[in-house]
């Protein structure tokens, strides 16, 4: 990369600053029910709009298509499919990772949306779009995205 000539940059004063900004986030009605089912029963739930004949993952209490309130909950089949994937080589501070992280967008048949998560127990050359995968859940679950450890190629 070409970088402009910088003379004596060390003599220019800078102040370092950061923002101590801390939040908490409520999951909402839909998120609460989704993560409770994941923690307690180990299943993935979605909501369904009968008018639009669409099932939404992550679940919502409103239909983004027709704006109706959604009250029908359905359990997803245990297996999903990799729609698109990437191998990520950098962390949040742009440090090079020793091993790239496989990240996938996992979709389920007949469902709008999906889940973005890591892939695990898979060789890099095995990863492809259309790969059938299943969620590997944590043994101790507290209700949150971390209850899914990763998705792996599904086993018969």
């Amino acid at each position, binding site marked *: 990369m070409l970088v402009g000539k*910088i003379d004596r940059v060390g003599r220019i004063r800078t102040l370092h*600053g950061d*923002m101590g900004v801390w939040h908490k986030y409520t999951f909402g009605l839909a998120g609460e029910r989704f993560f409770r089912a994941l923690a307690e029963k180990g299943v993935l739930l979605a909501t369904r709009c009968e008018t639009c004949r669409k099932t939404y*993952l992550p679940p919502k209490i409103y239909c983004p298509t027709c704006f109706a309130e959604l009250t029908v909950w359905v359990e997803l089949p245990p297996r999903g499919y990799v729609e*698109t994937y990437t191998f990520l080589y950098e962390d*949040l*501070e742009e440090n090079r990772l020793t091993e*790239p*992280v496989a990240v996938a967008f996992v979709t389920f048949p007949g469902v709008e949306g999906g889940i973005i998560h890591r892939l695990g127990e898979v060789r890099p050359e095995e990863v492809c779009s259309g790969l059938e995968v299943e969620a590997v859940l944590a043994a101790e679950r507290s209700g*949150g995205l971390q209850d899914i450890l990763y998705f792996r190629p599904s086993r018969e």
Partner: protein
Amino acid sequence: MRERVAIVGVGYTSFRPLSPEVSFREMVFEAACRAYADAGLEPDRVGTFVAVSEDYLEGTSIFDEYVPDQLGAVLKPVQTICQDGITAIASAYLQLATGLFEVALVEGHAKASNVLYPAHIEAFAMDPVFVRPLGLNPRFVAGLEMRSFLAQTGNTEEQVALVVAKNKANALKNPLAAYPALVTAEDVLASRPVATPVKELDIAPFADGAVVLILARESVARTLKSQPVYIRGIGWMQDTPNLDQRDWSQASYAELAGRMAYRQAGIRDPKEEICFAEVDDTFSYKELQHIEALGLARCGEAGVLLSEGYFLPDGPLPVNVSGGSLGNGYLYDASGLRSVLEVVLQLRGQAGERQLPDVRVGLAQSWRGIPTASGGVIILSNE
């Protein structure tokens, strides 16, 4: 018939990887002084000011309070929006169209070198419940999208690499650009993977800089010394924020913003009627995706046309003759304003060594970057 609106003044700094000797305010001051001089106006003629910024990128909360001083906007109507630059132009355009104001100023800047860990800011923009807990560098979004775009359209990684070679070479003729270079598609393909298939050279590096544009209603524009460049159409569009609900292969926001702008401009066949375009190339594949979304090539056709030289400066439809963000540097929300600046300079015949011959209608398009699916389109004409 509504009175037309023109861009009557442009001001800018050069775009640089670092700007250690100046503050962001001093960069904006430089760009504003040039814009006023270019338009032949004093700040007191400006009725309304619109700025784009984002608190986290500035490192200052309630950043809009920092906007007026360096623009000559103290105790004037000022609006700061957190959107991309072309959306800011749309806001100024609408304010002029109401008849309340005669002259408006639009400002955008980037002091990207002040941001130590930009990925943390993009990560904080992710859904806090369903995505952010993964703790991933948000460039994974570009990796997922590029793979899907290539698979759905049939464009290739090699064609995407040609975008980088073209834009960095175009930037060699742009004295403002931070990252001009002669690189080959092979260099790009051999650069380190970041989020496959996105590689290091596919990503526009950050730059510091400021762009100021002055807009006026036609009746005022005609009394000024600069050659007016008319806004013939402008559109802006926002897709869902949910990564999980998007179409991973298409830039629907660009397609719909383009349609909105084309309708106003009366453009039916953009490929024939647009003389040249500056489209977002924050990631190299985005240029091909945006070209197709804007109807400047059919779906799946952009890569082939590119490899045939169609989008080169001497081709039928030059794209990013300025060097784009890959050549100039990525300026966050000011990137769209930098694209508009190039279109104005070209339409005025002031683009120096890279001047395109006989251009009448130009397009600029912006994307707000990861993790957004929003942006704007503007059609400008010197007639």
